[in-house]
Protein backbone atom coordinates (compact mmCIF):
# COMPACT_ATOMS: atom_id res chain seq x y z
CA UNK A 1 0.00 0.00 0.00
CA UNK A 2 1.41 3.37 -1.05
CA UNK A 3 1.49 6.18 1.51
CA UNK A 4 0.73 9.78 0.68
CA UNK A 5 0.95 12.92 2.80
CA UNK A 6 -2.05 14.44 1.05
CA UNK A 7 -4.72 12.79 -1.07
CA UNK A 8 -7.04 15.15 -2.95
CA UNK A 9 -10.26 13.63 -4.22
CA UNK A 10 -11.45 15.57 -7.26
CA UNK A 11 -9.48 17.47 -9.89
CA UNK A 12 -11.81 20.44 -10.33
CA UNK A 13 -11.20 24.06 -9.32
CA UNK A 14 -11.04 23.31 -5.57
CA UNK A 15 -8.83 20.22 -5.80
CA UNK A 16 -6.39 21.74 -8.30
CA UNK A 17 -6.06 24.92 -6.25
CA UNK A 18 -5.43 22.96 -3.05
CA UNK A 19 -2.71 20.89 -4.75
CA UNK A 20 -0.94 23.98 -6.03
CA UNK A 21 -0.79 25.76 -2.65
CA UNK A 22 0.30 22.53 -0.94
CA UNK A 23 3.05 22.03 -3.51
CA UNK A 24 4.25 25.59 -2.94
CA UNK A 25 4.53 24.75 0.75
CA UNK A 26 6.51 21.60 -0.01
CA UNK A 27 3.77 19.00 0.46
CA UNK A 28 3.61 16.05 -1.90
CA UNK A 29 0.09 15.15 -2.98
CA UNK A 30 -1.91 13.00 -5.34
CA UNK A 31 -5.07 14.12 -7.14
CA UNK A 32 -7.60 11.39 -7.83
CA UNK A 33 -9.96 12.30 -10.69
CA UNK A 34 -12.90 10.21 -11.82
CA UNK A 35 -13.09 11.73 -15.30
CA UNK A 36 -10.54 11.27 -18.07
CA UNK A 37 -9.39 14.87 -17.73
CA UNK A 38 -8.69 17.45 -15.02
CA UNK A 39 -10.51 20.77 -14.71
CA UNK A 40 -13.87 19.66 -13.38
CA UNK A 41 -16.86 21.52 -14.78
CA UNK A 42 -14.78 24.55 -15.79
CA UNK A 43 -13.93 22.79 -19.06
CA UNK A 44 -17.38 23.61 -20.43
CA UNK A 45 -17.78 27.16 -19.12
CA UNK A 46 -17.29 29.41 -22.13
CA UNK A 47 -18.43 32.55 -20.33
CA UNK A 48 -16.21 35.02 -18.53
CA UNK A 49 -16.24 34.88 -14.77
CA UNK A 50 -17.10 37.64 -12.34
CA UNK A 51 -15.47 38.15 -8.96
CA UNK A 52 -12.08 39.83 -8.74
CA UNK A 53 -8.86 39.36 -10.66
CA UNK A 54 -7.55 37.01 -7.99
CA UNK A 55 -10.21 34.50 -9.03
CA UNK A 56 -9.50 35.10 -12.72
CA UNK A 57 -12.46 37.42 -13.33
CA UNK A 58 -12.99 38.41 -16.98
CA UNK A 59 -11.41 35.10 -17.97
CA UNK A 60 -13.47 32.34 -19.57
CA UNK A 61 -13.99 29.18 -17.51
CA UNK A 62 -12.33 27.05 -20.19
CA UNK A 63 -9.21 29.21 -19.88
CA UNK A 64 -9.32 29.19 -16.05
CA UNK A 65 -9.30 25.38 -16.28
CA UNK A 66 -6.13 25.54 -18.38
CA UNK A 67 -4.46 27.93 -15.90
CA UNK A 68 -5.30 25.72 -12.90
CA UNK A 69 -4.18 22.54 -14.66
CA UNK A 70 -0.93 24.18 -15.81
CA UNK A 71 -0.29 25.39 -12.25
CA UNK A 72 -0.45 21.76 -11.13
CA UNK A 73 1.70 20.54 -14.02
CA UNK A 74 4.38 23.01 -12.88
CA UNK A 75 5.01 20.68 -9.92
CA UNK A 76 5.55 17.26 -11.52
CA UNK A 77 7.72 16.13 -8.60
CA UNK A 78 5.21 17.14 -5.93
CA UNK A 79 1.81 16.48 -7.49
CA UNK A 80 0.85 13.10 -8.84
CA UNK A 81 -2.33 12.86 -10.92
CA UNK A 82 -4.52 9.80 -11.45
CA UNK A 83 -7.36 10.28 -13.94
CA UNK A 84 -10.06 7.73 -14.82
CA UNK A 85 -9.90 6.73 -11.18
CA UNK A 86 -12.80 6.59 -8.75
CA UNK A 87 -12.51 6.54 -4.98
CA UNK A 88 -14.90 3.74 -4.08
CA UNK A 89 -13.93 3.32 -0.45
CA UNK A 90 -12.95 5.73 2.30
CA UNK A 91 -12.14 4.50 5.80
CA UNK A 92 -11.63 6.06 9.21
CA UNK A 93 -8.00 4.90 9.30
CA UNK A 94 -7.27 7.12 6.27
CA UNK A 95 -7.21 4.27 3.78
CA UNK A 96 -8.81 4.78 0.37
CA UNK A 97 -9.86 2.15 -2.16
CA UNK A 98 -9.35 3.22 -5.76
CA UNK A 99 -10.88 1.77 -8.90
CA UNK A 100 -9.01 2.31 -12.15
CA UNK A 101 -9.57 0.30 -15.33
CA UNK A 102 -11.40 -2.44 -13.44
CA UNK A 103 -8.59 -2.94 -10.97
CA UNK A 104 -8.72 -2.04 -7.30
CA UNK A 105 -5.89 -0.66 -5.22
CA UNK A 106 -5.51 0.83 -1.76
CA UNK A 107 -3.59 3.89 -0.66
CA UNK A 108 -3.07 5.45 2.76
CA UNK A 109 -3.11 9.16 3.49
CA UNK A 110 -1.93 11.39 6.30
CA UNK A 111 -4.54 13.93 5.26
CA UNK A 112 -7.37 14.02 2.75
CA UNK A 113 -9.13 16.88 1.00
CA UNK A 114 -12.51 15.89 -0.41
CA UNK A 115 -13.29 18.18 -3.36
CA UNK A 116 -15.89 16.15 -5.21
CA UNK A 117 -18.11 19.05 -6.27
CA UNK A 118 -21.84 18.85 -6.83
CA UNK A 119 -24.37 17.24 -9.13
CA UNK A 120 -27.41 18.64 -10.91
CA UNK A 121 -30.76 18.30 -9.23
CA UNK A 122 -33.72 16.68 -10.89
CA UNK A 123 -37.34 17.79 -11.04
CA UNK A 124 -40.51 15.74 -10.57
CA UNK A 125 -43.15 15.95 -13.34
CA UNK A 126 -44.98 13.50 -15.58
CA UNK A 127 -42.70 11.72 -18.08
CA UNK A 128 -39.61 13.48 -16.75
CA UNK A 129 -37.46 10.54 -17.86
CA UNK A 130 -37.97 10.95 -21.62
CA UNK A 131 -34.74 11.16 -23.65
CA UNK A 132 -34.34 14.82 -24.60
CA UNK A 133 -34.80 15.99 -21.01
CA UNK A 134 -31.31 16.82 -19.84
CA UNK A 135 -29.54 18.66 -17.09
CA UNK A 136 -28.46 22.13 -18.22
CA UNK A 137 -24.86 21.26 -17.38
CA UNK A 138 -25.13 18.07 -19.43
CA UNK A 139 -26.15 20.06 -22.49
CA UNK A 140 -23.27 22.42 -21.84
CA UNK A 141 -20.85 19.48 -21.82
CA UNK A 142 -22.35 18.07 -25.01
CA UNK A 143 -22.07 21.29 -26.98
CA UNK A 144 -19.05 23.06 -25.49
CA UNK A 145 -16.78 20.06 -24.92
CA UNK A 146 -17.88 17.70 -27.68
CA UNK A 147 -19.24 20.19 -30.20
CA UNK A 148 -22.53 18.33 -30.61
CA UNK A 149 -25.83 20.20 -30.70
CA UNK A 150 -28.42 18.92 -28.22
CA UNK A 151 -31.29 19.46 -30.66
CA UNK A 152 -33.18 22.11 -32.60
CA UNK A 153 -35.28 23.72 -29.89
CA UNK A 154 -34.79 24.03 -26.15
CA UNK A 155 -36.98 25.09 -23.28
CA UNK A 156 -35.01 25.86 -20.12
CA UNK A 157 -36.49 25.20 -16.68
CA UNK A 158 -34.90 27.53 -14.13
CA UNK A 159 -33.63 31.11 -14.46
CA UNK A 160 -30.71 30.94 -12.05
CA UNK A 161 -27.31 31.84 -13.45
CA UNK A 162 -26.73 28.38 -14.90
CA UNK A 163 -30.11 28.40 -16.66
CA UNK A 164 -29.54 31.88 -18.07
CA UNK A 165 -25.92 31.30 -19.09
CA UNK A 166 -26.58 27.93 -20.72
CA UNK A 167 -29.57 29.40 -22.58
CA UNK A 168 -27.30 32.09 -23.98
CA UNK A 169 -24.65 29.53 -24.89
CA UNK A 170 -27.29 27.45 -26.66
CA UNK A 171 -28.17 30.48 -28.79
CA UNK A 172 -24.45 31.01 -29.52
CA UNK A 173 -24.24 27.42 -30.76
CA UNK A 174 -27.22 27.96 -33.06
CA UNK A 175 -29.99 26.33 -31.03
CA UNK A 176 -33.37 28.03 -30.78
CA UNK A 177 -34.25 28.70 -27.13
CA UNK A 178 -38.04 28.88 -27.06
CA UNK A 179 -38.46 30.04 -23.47
CA UNK A 180 -36.97 30.04 -20.00
CA UNK A 181 -39.39 28.99 -17.25
CA UNK A 182 -39.09 30.26 -13.70
CA UNK A 183 -41.33 29.01 -10.90
CA UNK A 184 -40.68 32.09 -8.74
CA UNK A 185 -42.27 35.45 -9.48
CA UNK A 186 -38.77 36.87 -10.14
CA UNK A 187 -35.76 35.87 -12.23
CA UNK A 188 -33.17 34.00 -10.16
CA UNK A 189 -29.85 34.91 -11.77
CA UNK A 190 -27.93 38.10 -12.49
CA UNK A 191 -29.79 40.77 -14.43
CA UNK A 192 -26.90 41.10 -16.87
CA UNK A 193 -27.39 37.49 -18.01
CA UNK A 194 -31.18 37.85 -18.22
CA UNK A 195 -30.88 41.04 -20.26
CA UNK A 196 -28.63 39.34 -22.81
CA UNK A 197 -31.33 36.73 -23.40
CA UNK A 198 -34.13 39.26 -23.56
CA UNK A 199 -32.21 41.24 -26.16
CA UNK A 200 -32.11 38.08 -28.30
CA UNK A 201 -35.90 37.82 -27.98
CA UNK A 202 -36.05 34.94 -25.50
CA UNK A 203 -39.04 35.07 -23.15
CA UNK A 204 -38.37 34.44 -19.47
CA UNK A 205 -41.71 33.28 -18.10
CA UNK A 206 -41.92 33.85 -14.35
CA UNK A 207 -44.44 32.07 -12.05
CA UNK A 208 -44.41 29.33 -14.68
CA UNK A 209 -43.18 25.76 -14.68
CA UNK A 210 -43.25 22.48 -16.55
CA UNK A 211 -46.26 20.30 -15.84
CA UNK A 212 -45.85 17.39 -18.19
CA UNK A 213 -43.62 16.06 -20.97
CA UNK A 214 -45.07 14.28 -23.98
CA UNK A 215 -43.38 11.97 -26.47
CA UNK A 216 -42.70 8.39 -27.43
CA UNK A 217 -39.12 7.31 -26.70
CA UNK A 218 -38.05 10.95 -27.03
CA UNK A 219 -39.35 14.37 -26.09
CA UNK A 220 -41.78 15.92 -28.57
CA UNK A 221 -43.67 18.57 -26.61
CA UNK A 222 -44.28 19.90 -23.13
CA UNK A 223 -47.19 21.35 -21.19
CA UNK A 224 -46.37 24.37 -19.08
CA UNK A 225 -48.57 26.02 -16.49
CA UNK A 226 -48.72 29.21 -14.47
CA UNK A 227 -48.06 28.82 -10.75
CA UNK A 228 -49.62 30.62 -7.80
CA UNK A 229 -47.54 32.08 -4.98
CA UNK A 230 -47.34 28.68 -3.28
CA UNK A 231 -46.03 27.10 -6.47
CA UNK A 232 -49.28 25.21 -7.17
CA UNK A 233 -50.40 24.86 -10.78
CA UNK A 234 -53.19 27.28 -11.68
CA UNK A 235 -55.96 25.51 -13.56
CA UNK A 236 -56.72 26.44 -17.17
CA UNK A 237 -53.39 28.23 -17.66
CA UNK A 238 -51.72 25.37 -19.50
CA UNK A 239 -49.90 25.98 -22.75
CA UNK A 240 -48.31 23.46 -25.11
CA UNK A 241 -44.84 24.02 -26.53
CA UNK A 242 -43.24 21.82 -29.19
CA UNK A 243 -39.62 21.12 -28.33
CA UNK A 244 -37.13 18.28 -28.70
CA UNK A 245 -34.99 19.32 -25.73
CA UNK A 246 -35.89 20.40 -22.22
CA UNK A 247 -33.10 21.54 -19.92
CA UNK A 248 -33.43 21.26 -16.17
CA UNK A 249 -31.55 23.88 -14.21
CA UNK A 250 -32.98 23.82 -10.72
CA UNK A 251 -29.84 23.85 -8.64
CA UNK A 252 -27.12 21.51 -7.51
CA UNK A 253 -26.58 19.09 -4.64
CA UNK A 254 -23.21 18.59 -2.95
CA UNK A 255 -21.66 15.24 -3.86
CA UNK A 256 -21.05 14.35 -0.25
CA UNK A 257 -21.64 10.61 -0.34
CA UNK A 258 -18.01 9.68 0.31
CA UNK A 259 -18.32 11.42 3.67
CA UNK A 260 -21.02 8.95 4.60
CA UNK A 261 -18.43 6.18 4.51
CA UNK A 262 -16.44 7.70 7.36
CA UNK A 263 -19.40 8.71 9.46
CA UNK A 264 -18.38 12.34 9.41
CA UNK A 265 -20.93 14.54 11.11
CA UNK A 266 -23.32 15.83 8.45
CA UNK A 267 -26.08 18.38 8.34
CA UNK A 268 -28.85 19.07 5.86
CA UNK A 269 -28.63 22.75 4.93
CA UNK A 270 -30.98 23.62 2.04
CA UNK A 271 -29.32 26.98 1.31
CA UNK A 272 -25.99 25.19 0.79
CA UNK A 273 -27.64 22.72 -1.60
CA UNK A 274 -28.33 19.76 0.69
CA UNK A 275 -26.32 17.40 2.87
CA UNK A 276 -22.95 18.90 3.83
CA UNK A 277 -20.25 18.01 6.34
CA UNK A 278 -20.17 19.96 9.56
CA UNK A 279 -16.75 21.59 9.51
CA UNK A 280 -14.62 23.90 11.62
CA UNK A 281 -13.29 27.25 10.42
CA UNK A 282 -10.39 25.43 8.78
CA UNK A 283 -12.64 23.24 6.63
CA UNK A 284 -11.85 20.14 8.69
CA UNK A 285 -14.66 17.64 9.13
CA UNK A 286 -15.49 15.90 12.41
CA UNK A 287 -12.95 13.26 11.36
CA UNK A 288 -9.45 14.54 12.09
CA UNK A 289 -7.26 15.24 9.03
CA UNK A 290 -10.17 14.90 6.60
CA UNK A 291 -11.03 18.24 5.00
CA UNK A 292 -13.56 19.44 2.40
CA UNK A 293 -13.34 22.24 -0.16
CA UNK A 294 -15.52 23.57 -2.96
CA UNK A 295 -19.13 22.75 -3.81
CA UNK A 296 -19.10 19.55 -1.75
CA UNK A 297 -19.35 21.72 1.37
CA UNK A 298 -21.88 24.17 -0.01
CA UNK A 299 -22.84 24.95 -3.61
CA UNK A 300 -21.40 28.26 -4.77
CA UNK A 301 -19.55 29.42 -7.88
CA UNK A 302 -16.24 28.13 -9.21
CA UNK A 303 -14.58 31.33 -7.97
CA UNK A 304 -15.37 30.36 -4.37
CA UNK A 305 -14.25 26.78 -5.00
CA UNK A 306 -10.86 28.05 -6.17
CA UNK A 307 -10.35 30.15 -3.03
CA UNK A 308 -11.66 27.41 -0.72
CA UNK A 309 -9.22 25.00 -2.37
CA UNK A 310 -6.32 27.38 -1.85
CA UNK A 311 -7.35 28.00 1.75
CA UNK A 312 -7.71 24.31 2.58
CA UNK A 313 -4.38 23.52 0.89
CA UNK A 314 -2.76 26.14 3.09
CA UNK A 315 -4.28 24.73 6.29
CA UNK A 316 -3.40 21.12 5.46
CA UNK A 317 0.20 22.06 4.63
CA UNK A 318 0.64 23.58 8.07
CA UNK A 319 -0.90 20.49 9.67
CA UNK A 320 1.61 18.32 7.82
CA UNK A 321 4.52 20.38 9.16
CA UNK A 322 5.10 22.33 5.95
CA UNK A 323 3.92 25.80 6.83
CA UNK A 324 3.70 27.90 3.66
CA UNK A 325 6.29 30.69 3.66
CA UNK A 326 3.51 33.26 3.20
CA UNK A 327 1.06 31.45 5.46
CA UNK A 328 -0.24 34.37 7.51
CA UNK A 329 -0.56 36.72 4.58
CA UNK A 330 -2.31 34.13 2.40
CA UNK A 331 -4.57 33.04 5.27
CA UNK A 332 -5.97 36.54 5.63
CA UNK A 333 -6.08 37.06 1.89
CA UNK A 334 -8.10 33.90 1.20
CA UNK A 335 -10.46 34.63 4.08
CA UNK A 336 -11.15 38.13 2.81
CA UNK A 337 -11.57 36.90 -0.78
CA UNK A 338 -14.24 34.47 0.39
CA UNK A 339 -15.93 37.18 2.38
CA UNK A 340 -16.00 39.43 -0.69
CA UNK A 341 -17.38 36.69 -2.92
CA UNK A 342 -20.16 36.09 -0.42
CA UNK A 343 -21.07 39.74 0.08
CA UNK A 344 -24.02 41.37 -1.67
CA UNK A 345 -27.52 40.06 -2.31
CA UNK A 346 -26.44 37.01 -4.34
CA UNK A 347 -24.20 35.78 -1.52
CA UNK A 348 -27.08 35.82 0.94
CA UNK A 349 -27.93 32.15 0.45
CA UNK A 350 -24.39 31.07 1.28
CA UNK A 351 -24.21 33.44 4.25
CA UNK A 352 -27.49 32.08 5.62
CA UNK A 353 -26.33 28.50 5.05
CA UNK A 354 -23.04 29.05 6.80
CA UNK A 355 -24.84 30.63 9.75
CA UNK A 356 -26.94 27.50 10.02
CA UNK A 357 -23.78 25.36 10.04
CA UNK A 358 -22.26 27.65 12.69
CA UNK A 359 -25.08 26.87 15.07
CA UNK A 360 -23.35 23.53 15.56
CA UNK A 361 -20.41 25.13 17.40
CA UNK A 362 -18.13 24.72 14.36
CA UNK A 363 -17.36 27.71 12.16
CA UNK A 364 -16.52 27.59 8.47
Amino acid at each position, binding site marked *: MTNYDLVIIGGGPAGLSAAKIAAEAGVKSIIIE*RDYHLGGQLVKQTHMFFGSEKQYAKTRGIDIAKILVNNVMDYPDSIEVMTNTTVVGLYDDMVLTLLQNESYSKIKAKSIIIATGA*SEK*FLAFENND*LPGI*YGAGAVQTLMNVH*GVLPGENVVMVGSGNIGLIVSYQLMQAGVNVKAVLEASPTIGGYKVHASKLKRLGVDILTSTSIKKAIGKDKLEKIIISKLDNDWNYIEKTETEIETDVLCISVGLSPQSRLLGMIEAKMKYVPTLGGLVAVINKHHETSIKNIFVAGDVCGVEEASSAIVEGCFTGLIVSERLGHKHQNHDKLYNDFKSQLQNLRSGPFGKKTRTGLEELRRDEFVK
Partner: protein
Amino acid sequence: MRIKDHPILEFKDQKPLHFTYNDTLVEGQFGDTIASALHNLGIRKLSHSIKDKRARGFYCAIGNCASCNMVVNGKPNVRTCVTLLEEGMSVKTQVNKGVLYD
Protein backbone atom coordinates in the same frame (compact mmCIF):
# COMPACT_ATOMS: atom_id res chain seq x y z
CA MET B 1 -25.42 17.43 -35.53
CA ARG B 2 -22.03 18.98 -34.96
CA ILE B 3 -21.42 22.66 -34.33
CA LYS B 4 -19.72 24.23 -37.36
CA ASP B 5 -19.40 27.91 -36.48
CA HIS B 6 -19.10 29.14 -32.94
CA PRO B 7 -18.23 32.66 -31.74
CA ILE B 8 -15.89 31.42 -28.99
CA LEU B 9 -14.98 27.81 -29.55
CA GLU B 10 -13.25 26.19 -32.48
CA PHE B 11 -14.15 22.63 -33.35
CA LYS B 12 -11.63 21.18 -35.79
CA ASP B 13 -12.33 18.15 -37.93
CA GLN B 14 -11.16 15.09 -36.07
CA LYS B 15 -10.12 11.64 -37.17
CA PRO B 16 -13.21 9.47 -37.76
CA LEU B 17 -13.73 6.46 -35.50
CA HIS B 18 -15.86 3.50 -36.59
CA PHE B 19 -17.96 1.52 -34.15
CA THR B 20 -21.10 -0.58 -34.12
CA TYR B 21 -24.37 0.51 -32.57
CA ASN B 22 -26.67 -2.48 -32.08
CA ASP B 23 -24.60 -4.32 -34.72
CA THR B 24 -24.83 -1.54 -37.32
CA LEU B 25 -21.57 0.09 -38.41
CA VAL B 26 -21.62 3.83 -37.62
CA GLU B 27 -19.12 6.67 -37.29
CA GLY B 28 -18.03 9.03 -34.55
CA GLN B 29 -14.85 11.00 -34.22
CA PHE B 30 -11.75 11.27 -32.07
CA GLY B 31 -12.56 13.09 -28.83
CA ASP B 32 -16.16 11.88 -28.70
CA THR B 33 -17.58 10.04 -25.76
CA ILE B 34 -19.82 7.15 -26.77
CA ALA B 35 -22.86 9.23 -25.78
CA SER B 36 -21.81 12.33 -27.75
CA ALA B 37 -21.13 10.23 -30.86
CA LEU B 38 -24.56 8.61 -30.60
CA HIS B 39 -26.29 11.90 -29.95
CA ASN B 40 -24.64 13.35 -33.04
CA LEU B 41 -26.17 10.47 -35.01
CA GLY B 42 -29.59 11.43 -33.66
CA ILE B 43 -29.71 8.49 -31.24
CA ARG B 44 -31.19 9.68 -27.97
CA LYS B 45 -32.50 6.50 -26.43
CA LEU B 46 -29.47 4.92 -24.76
CA SER B 47 -30.96 2.74 -22.08
CA HIS B 48 -34.16 1.55 -20.41
CA SER B 49 -35.54 1.75 -16.93
CA ILE B 50 -35.13 -1.63 -15.31
CA LYS B 51 -38.73 -2.35 -14.33
CA ASP B 52 -40.98 -0.67 -16.88
CA LYS B 53 -38.42 -0.57 -19.72
CA ARG B 54 -39.05 3.11 -20.27
CA ALA B 55 -36.65 4.81 -22.67
CA ARG B 56 -33.71 6.61 -21.09
CA GLY B 57 -31.24 9.11 -22.54
CA PHE B 58 -28.36 10.71 -20.73
CA TYR B 59 -29.14 13.21 -17.99
CA CYS B 60 -25.97 14.57 -16.36
CA ALA B 61 -23.25 13.80 -18.95
CA ILE B 62 -20.58 13.74 -16.22
CA GLY B 63 -20.90 10.21 -14.88
CA ASN B 64 -23.22 10.81 -11.93
CA CYS B 65 -26.65 9.54 -12.82
CA ALA B 66 -26.27 6.17 -14.64
CA SER B 67 -29.04 7.11 -17.07
CA CYS B 68 -26.77 6.46 -20.08
CA ASN B 69 -25.54 2.97 -19.15
CA MET B 70 -25.02 0.73 -22.19
CA VAL B 71 -23.38 -2.56 -23.07
CA VAL B 72 -19.91 -1.78 -24.46
CA ASN B 73 -17.74 -4.55 -25.84
CA GLY B 74 -20.01 -7.00 -24.02
CA LYS B 75 -19.68 -5.26 -20.66
CA PRO B 76 -22.93 -3.91 -19.19
CA ASN B 77 -23.47 -0.71 -17.17
CA VAL B 78 -20.79 1.32 -18.93
CA ARG B 79 -21.34 5.03 -18.36
CA THR B 80 -21.25 6.10 -22.01
CA CYS B 81 -21.20 9.84 -21.20
CA VAL B 82 -17.71 9.60 -19.68
CA THR B 83 -16.28 6.75 -21.76
CA LEU B 84 -14.24 7.88 -24.74
CA LEU B 85 -15.14 6.33 -28.06
CA GLU B 86 -12.57 3.93 -29.54
CA GLU B 87 -12.17 2.45 -33.00
CA GLY B 88 -14.00 -0.85 -33.37
CA MET B 89 -16.13 -0.59 -30.20
CA SER B 90 -19.34 -2.56 -29.96
CA VAL B 91 -22.09 -0.49 -28.34
CA LYS B 92 -25.50 -1.96 -27.55
CA THR B 93 -28.66 -0.72 -25.88
CA GLN B 94 -29.02 -2.19 -22.42
CA VAL B 95 -32.42 -3.64 -21.57
CA ASN B 96 -31.82 -5.22 -18.17
CA LYS B 97 -29.64 -4.81 -15.12
CA GLY B 98 -26.72 -6.51 -16.82
CA VAL B 99 -24.94 -9.64 -15.70
CA LEU B 100 -21.85 -9.35 -13.53
CA TYR B 101 -20.19 -12.61 -14.60
CA ASP B 102 -21.35 -14.27 -17.79
